[in-house]
């Protein structure tokens, strides 16, 4: 079932066009991977899905992006509600310089989700458990989040993202700053999470895309070259450029 449907999305940074007529259907409770060489527009597209491009002054988005029939690319959209529903995990782990507890409680606090201290404790515990971090930090929830290791920080960011029970999580190269063991932990986590949420992941690692995703989209020079089931993209792509990229001939 389709969760997000993008049609003819064009993005401009000032006068420079970064995305050309991208149309894509993202299925519910699946992992969709976006791959492609650096600067191909995959992160730009990802940031359209939770309107993070609003932060960039010179950025302009055209086209239609619908999530459950709600138009995302509209002035009238309540961005705060959207981002409550669409969480994001960034390339570089970015926990706030606050305690581990406060990091996870940040979203529920600003959205007024928890009614009491007990409820908040419960949310923090569940989120950290889902992010597979609970056992490592349960005795030091009042320590500063930035003091954790890189992999732990990234899992803390995932816990922060899932604390408000979003329907979609966007991940922008979540493992590129991590070592292989931490990467494996995150990938395992993605596998668990997809039972409940729709995940869109941008990655530079083709093996990672092959391991975690069900659908893969290949971007090149701002265009979506090919989109389809991961198996097909990696084993038998329709497009020659995709073939070349997958086999490492460029990019």
């Amino acid at each position, binding site marked *: 079932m389709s969760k997000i449907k993008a049609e003819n999305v064009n993005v401009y940074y000032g006068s420079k066009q970064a995305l050309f007529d991208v149309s894509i259907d993202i299925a519910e409770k699946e992992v969709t991977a976006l791959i492609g060489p650096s600067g191909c527009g995959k992160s730009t597209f990802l940031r359209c899905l939770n309107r993070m491009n609003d932060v960039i002054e010179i950025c302009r988005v055209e086209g239609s992006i619908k999530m459950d029939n709600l138009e995302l690319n509209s002035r009238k959209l309540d961005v705060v509600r*959207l981002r409550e529903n669409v969480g994001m995990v960034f390339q570089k782990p970015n926990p706030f310089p606050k305690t581990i507890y406060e990091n996870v409680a940040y979203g529920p606090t600003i959205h007024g989700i928890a009614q009491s201290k007990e409820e908040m404790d419960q949310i923090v515990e569940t989120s950290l458990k889902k992010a597979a971090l609970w056992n490592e930090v349960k005795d030091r929830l009042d320590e500063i989040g930035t003091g954790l290791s890189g992999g732990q920080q990234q899992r803390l960011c995932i816990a922060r993202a899932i604390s408000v029970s979003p329907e979609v999580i966007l991940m922008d190269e979540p493992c590129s700053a991590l070592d292989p063991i931490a990467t494996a932990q995150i990938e395992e986590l993605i596998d668990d999470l997809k039972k409940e949420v729709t995940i869109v992941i941008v990655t530079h690692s083709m093996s990672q895309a092959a391991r975690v995703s069900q659908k893969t989209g290949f971007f090149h020079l701002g265009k979506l070259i090919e989109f389809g089931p991961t198996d097909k993209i990696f084993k038998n792509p329709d497009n020659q450029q995709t073939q070349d990229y997958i086999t490492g001939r460029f990019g």
Partner: protein
Amino acid sequence: MNLILVTFIILLAFTSYYFGRKKALVIQSSQRLTALPKFYGYYLAAWCAAPALIIFALWSVFEPSIVKTFILQDYTDQNLTKNELQLIYTKVKALAAGTYTGNITNFLDESANKYIQLKGIANSAKVAIILAILIFSLSFAYRSVQKNDRMREPVEIFLKWVLFVASLGAVLVTIGIVFSLLFEAIRFFQAVKIFDFIFGTHWYPAKTFVRDGQPDPELMKDAFGAVPLFAGTFFIAFIAMCVAIPIGLLSGIYLSEYAGRGIRKYAKPIIEILAGIPTVVYGFFAALTVGPFVKEIGNAMGLQVSAESALAAGAVMGVMIIPFISSLSDDVMTAVPQNLRDGSYAMGATKSETVKKVIFPAALPGIVGSILLAVSRAVGETMIVVMASGLAANLTMNPLESTSTITAQIVVILIGDQQFGDPKTQSAFALGISLFIVTLLLNVIALSVVKKYREKYE
């Protein structure tokens, strides 16, 4: 004479630079150079200028006292005091320069002739020695250029020493200032008990003035109580911070988080221009505009307001400090990594929530540092207080009355006629050193807070 000599040395150094570079190009044709040709030039120029200039400087420092010793040798049998000898030497110098107008005794005339003679010998000797050194050091350096010795290391070592001497100079001057403050302050504390100074509540140094002899110790006891000055200083600084912190912080937040690129481009320099306005301009603004304005408003409300109120001085000082706080806090908030902002926005936080819960707490140590720096500036500010806040050291917490500060009192004490040995004059040094200690402490705290903040992200 000295000017010609120094100019000659410097010109010669420039010439030897070009000569050395040229020589290197000649050497290049037959063998491999040890460094770039310009290093040969630097090497020659350094050897030309450095020894000659060092000797010149030393000579200039020691020559006068040596000449003085020679002149005053003739007077040793007259049992004169140090001050009298100094007076004679001044007379001799004036006579030699032709500006002496008093009685000319034979003895004095003789000394003046001797002085002129000695000066002449010294000058010729100086020129001769420096020329000799130039020839010696240049020929030494030229020989090693000819031998194509290593050039890069000596030049680098030379530069290191030049930089070292420059920073040593800066440090020594600072230490010298602190010590001169300290010594005068110690002399002051021999006349006035340190306890009376720190805890006394009356500041009225003029009352210790007596035409002859020593002032009455009982009077001294009650004239140099610094409490009203410290109280006034911190009170006015407090009023200033009440103005500067809210406006500065809010405008800093606006500039770093809300202002668009276009607004920021113009607003920030304009705010920083406020910091460039001379404080004396703020001073007459406070004295002639704000002071009377505050008085009128107060009178209209039926309050007793002095025309030179602490409120007027503090408020204007606050305006002066706004750019420090807004500019520094803007800088530290802008320095908060963008990915923290992204993280907060991506959670659905609004701009004000992001500022309040992420940016401000993350930047807080830096902001505290900037505020402490601003406080130390407010405490040391002089001109505004002298002009707008009156000079009577009242011990008051009423912002509508006039009060005085440490800096203003130092000005009052040191302008006009003063006797150097007088405790009244020396009290300025005691005030100076206590002000120095206060601002030093504030700066140390501010810097350590800022440093802690730096460690947080790196």
